[in-house]
């Protein structure tokens, strides 16, 4: 007997709807305990429009096909010694930052979407969250596999997951996701699905993937292509979530607006690592952070929020402050790593003259006035045999956990200090944005695991810097310090038949 084949639409409906039931032995509220306490009101889950009509069987087929292509390229890259074709071994430090700082977030996103998928009462968002959860797990795995080739030749890669949980600056991305995952499912969806995946994702993915392309790293570029169709699905989900919540009930607007404000600021601070990578770490530059910010936030974000105006949603609070900071954030961040290079799991360097000229050109309003003199001063100190290391530990922001290295809006000469007294104790912040987030939920952020304070409390392997680095599994003398003089430089020069930099001059 011939079986009539179902149309795509019909098939989709059968595979995604009517999969659940109204429970009778247990109360529905007990089965779904997480989807009400945040105050979000959902009147009709069936109004959820699936942003992408993808069934599970089609999903497996697509992903398997992409996987086959990716692994074929990775194999070819390894067989052809693709590492020899990158622009410069300094580039590898971009991958170290990505693998230690970003890839573990993919894994966190996998877990976060799995949880959200379980705890949303409506079947539409459950299916979408489940697929995104699988995507994120796949991204984590394929990134680790792609970058593992470089682990055969370069330092600072092998212990990425361990480092993510312990190293001081990696607490910045880690705590960002911990914060999102410790929130309810709706806040998680706005935090990661909307603010991160929709509003800010281009500022993360495009710089890393174009950076890879410009610098001859074909394996990472291929990973980027393989993730691209997933990313566009994630963006569509992010925008659907916000529209759904705002259409369901007018009471949702102030809650959603608060989350958008918060997660825009949280995301912007984390992206400061990308800013530094673009302006300082790529041997062949793609564009400046400021240019990327203008294209992907000011212009793209601007039209997005114009579109969302009809729901009453406004541009995130402090977006103007973030835009002003785009002039400064990369310089201030690279200066942090330059002076704490002894405690970083990647290499740093002083920008050379050509690089400084590029920065002067890209930041005509600020670079020559504030930052170029700093690099020239440090270069001079280095020449005199007094390379600057900051031997004290930095004050960290209670919310974003970044060293409080950012200057006052409107005054780049002065570090911004903000403080709240709560429950008899002082809490310090780098910005009004971070202070507002704390003030709204002090009970949450008073629990921040601030690496500097944890070291002082004796929870990080011991009292001395070598003790702490050992606890990080940071291989001192190989993973850390300046690129010039590193084993990475040595191996690169041996491949390229070059004498060490100093001898060549």
């Amino acid at each position, binding site marked *: 007997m011939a079986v009539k084949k179902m149309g795509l639409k019909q098939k989709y409906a059968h595979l995604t709807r009517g999969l659940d039931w109204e429970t009778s032995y247990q109360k529905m509220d007990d089965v779904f305990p997480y989807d009400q*306490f945040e105050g979000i009101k959902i009147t009709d889950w069936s109004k959820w429009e699936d942003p992408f009509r993808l069934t599970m069987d089609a999903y497996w087929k697509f992903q398997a096909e992409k996987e086959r292509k990716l692994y074929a390229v990775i194999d070819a890259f390894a067989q052809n010694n693709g590492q020899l074709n990158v622009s410069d071994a300094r580039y590898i430090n971009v991958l170290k930052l990505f693998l230690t700082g970003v890839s573990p977030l993919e894994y966190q996103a996998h877990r976060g979407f799995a949880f959200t998928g379980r705890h949303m009462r409506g079947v539409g968002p459950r299916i979408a969250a489940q697929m995104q959860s699988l995507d994120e797990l796949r991204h984590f795995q394929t990134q680790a596999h792609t970058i593992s080739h470089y682990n055969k030749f370069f330092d600072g890669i092998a212990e990425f997951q361990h480092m993510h949980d312990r190293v001081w600056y990696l607490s910045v991305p880690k705590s960002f996701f911990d914060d999102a995952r410790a929130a*309810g499912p709706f806040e998680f969806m706005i935090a990661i699905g909307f603010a991160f995946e929709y509003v800010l994702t281009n500022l993360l993915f495009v710089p890393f993937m174009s950076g890879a392309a410009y610098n001859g790293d074909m394996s990472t570029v291929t990973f980027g292509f393989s993730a691209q169709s997933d990313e566009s699905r994630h963006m569509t989900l992010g925008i659907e979530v916000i529209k759904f919540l705002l259409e369901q009930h007018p009471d949702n607007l102030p809650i959603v607006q608060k989350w958008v404000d918060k997660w825009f600021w949280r995301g912007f601070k984390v992206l400061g690592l990308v800013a530094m990578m673009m302006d300082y770490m790529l041997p062949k530059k793609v564009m400046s952070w400021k240019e990327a910010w203008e294209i992907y936030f000011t212009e793209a974000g601007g039209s997005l929020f114009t579109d969302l105006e009809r729901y009453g949603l406004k541009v995130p609070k402090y977006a103007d402050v973030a835009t002003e900071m785009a002039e400064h954030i990369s310089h*201030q961040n690279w200066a942090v790593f330059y002076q704490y290079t002894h405690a970083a799991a990647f290499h740093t360097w002083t920008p050379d003259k050509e690089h400084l000229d590029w920065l002067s050109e890209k930041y005509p309003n600020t670079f020559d006035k504030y930052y170029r003199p700093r690099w020239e001063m440090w270069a001079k100190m280095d020449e005199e045999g007094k390379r600057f290391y900051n*031997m004290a530990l*930095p004050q960290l922001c209670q919310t974003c956990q970044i060293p*409080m290295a950012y200057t006052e809006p409107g005054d780049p000469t002065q570090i911004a200090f903000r*403080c709240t007294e709560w429950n008899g104790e002082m809490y310090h912040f780098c910005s009004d944005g971070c202070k507002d987030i704390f003030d709204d939920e002090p009970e949450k952020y008073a629990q921040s695991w601030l690496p500097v304070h944890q070291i002082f*409390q004796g929870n990080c392997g011991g009292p001395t810097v070598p003790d702490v680095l050992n606890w990080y599994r940071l291989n001192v003398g190989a993973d850390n310090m300046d690129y010039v003089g590193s084993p990475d430089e040595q191996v690169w020069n041996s491949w390229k038949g070059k004498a060490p930099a100093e001898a060549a001059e």
Partner: protein
Amino acid sequence: MPVIALDKDYAKKVEFRDNVNNFHGNQLTYVHWEEHNMFCSAIAFPLPPAMPFGALVSEVIAPHYAAHPDAAKIDWSKVEWMIDGKKVTPDFDKSLAENGMKHKSLVRFWTPGLNGYKGTYS
């Protein structure tokens, strides 16, 4: 505003990680040399509250900022101090606690006439 959490007793279960009792008799002190942003941020130290302010200056602050070319030119008697947002004249012989410093106090100081490498605040 009450905590928004699934657990009604959430606030009671919070672990305040940086309680002064966790610092083995010390209190946290943050120090920042204004107009010298070569030091990327304020720096943090766990210090005994009974430490004299003078010792904070000579044993903690001075050595940690010594790398800066301006450091040797500092006249400590002319330094302007701010503790937790208030301009003050600390008594160098008295302790940190007697100078009003608490756990996580922030000490900012200005060195008139010295404002960084070539006057660029670096």
